[in-house]
């Protein structure tokens, strides 16, 4: 356990909160737009730090291996379970980069995004 306090994600979130709550409202035009991007980037980094801290794993390596097998053709596109595995890769990625992109998992939920 780190002796550094507060943790990195708390620091990053503090910067994001300052930008969003205090600085951005004083800005207009280009800088206001860029400040909003900065806030979202910091929140992404905080989520990544928390995910790495709580679920350290070799997902990255497994993803690389899978990418190589797909690129060199050793894995068929219709391999059973492949689509589900690819979705799992993206679920983890989107949980960090944009948690709002995928709706609630339960198909019966009325909040689920409409089928394609």
């Amino acid at each position, binding site marked *: 356990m780190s002796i550094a306090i507060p943790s990195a994600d708390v620091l990053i979130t503090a910067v994001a909160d300052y930008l969003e709550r205090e600085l951005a409202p004083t800005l207009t035009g280009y800088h206001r737009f860029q400040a909003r*991007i900065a806030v979202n980037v910091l929140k992404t980094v905080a989520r990544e730090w928390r995910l790495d801290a709580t679920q350290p794993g070799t997902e990255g390596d497994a993803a690389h291996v899978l990418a190589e097998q797909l690129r060199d053709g050793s894995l068929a596109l219709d391999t059973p379970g492949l689509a589900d595995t690819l979705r799992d890769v993206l679920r983890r990625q989107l949980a960090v980069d944009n948690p709002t992109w995928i709706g609630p998992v339960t198909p019966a939920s009325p909040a689920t995004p409409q089928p394609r």
Partner: protein
Amino acid sequence: MPIIEDTAEAAAPQQAVHTALTRAMRRHLDPDAQITELDRLTGGATKQTWAFTLTNGAHAQRMILQRCPEPARQAGDGPRVPRLSAAEDAALMRLARAHGVPAPEVCLVLDDADGLGPGYVTQHVTGITLGRAVVRDAAYARARERMATQAGEILAAIHAMPPQAAPFLDGLSPADELRLYTRLLRAHAVQHPVLEYAVRWIEAHLPGQWQDSIVHADFRTGNLIVDEQGIRCVLDWEIARRGDPLQDLGVLCMRTWRFGGAGHAGGFGSREDLYASYERASGRGLDVDRVRFWEAFANLKWAINCVRRGLAQGPDGRAASLELAAIGRRLGEPLWDFLDIVTPETA
């Protein structure tokens, strides 16, 4: 390649543009022209858009100055990323208007003597382009009811334009498009399994034949001027090409460009309305599976562009900009949408 090469302009861009633009308008259009209310609409060092009022005595009209970067010289063999020069862009928009397509009305094309670089001046069109406003503001609720139908009609008109009247357009087959985008991807050291899957899937499903047509290639919410009557003007023609026209419908239906709107077509309307309108206006049945193919491919192209922008470096080796670096983290979105389109979810 940056537009601003003149140090005087870099120091005082507003004044420099005002001076040069006044000279240009007097030279090309009206020796007594005055320029007022000059406003820069877009940021950045590449494509610059300015609005201004051209007055002569009592007569005043609002106009747009578009300054365009030169298409980049591209190294290597193989298909190029289509990018029209200012003169070609203007010629295409003139052709579009001549065929009943709502495009900006070109008043003049800049030449070297104007000292503004490549570009053109068009009539201003009143309306909004901002995606989030188009898809959700109450002021445009009535417009949204008819926009999918309008989009179908406009796209059919674009696709009916004679390609031979625009000989400067690059022709790209579906295989050419895949070769081009794969080459762009391989310029970066990226090992993403869903990207690789998508490249192979597109390759395995490439259409063998299509109705060779003029293709806008970026017809989507964000590039349409909208007012309370609906779509008023189609912008951003500079990546137009010749190819399979159904890719324009695929791009329009991408989830990324719905800006949170519920309608599958542009976030503003239904796929059914768009398809029915396109069929009626084109007088041909619509291959819905082909539209889905191009929607999937459009997602792959956007994913590859997320890689390129996310990894874009400045001269110091750091991220070229905050905005570009941030786009790299949007990679998962079009890849998720790609899987939704091509594979049913069984989990």
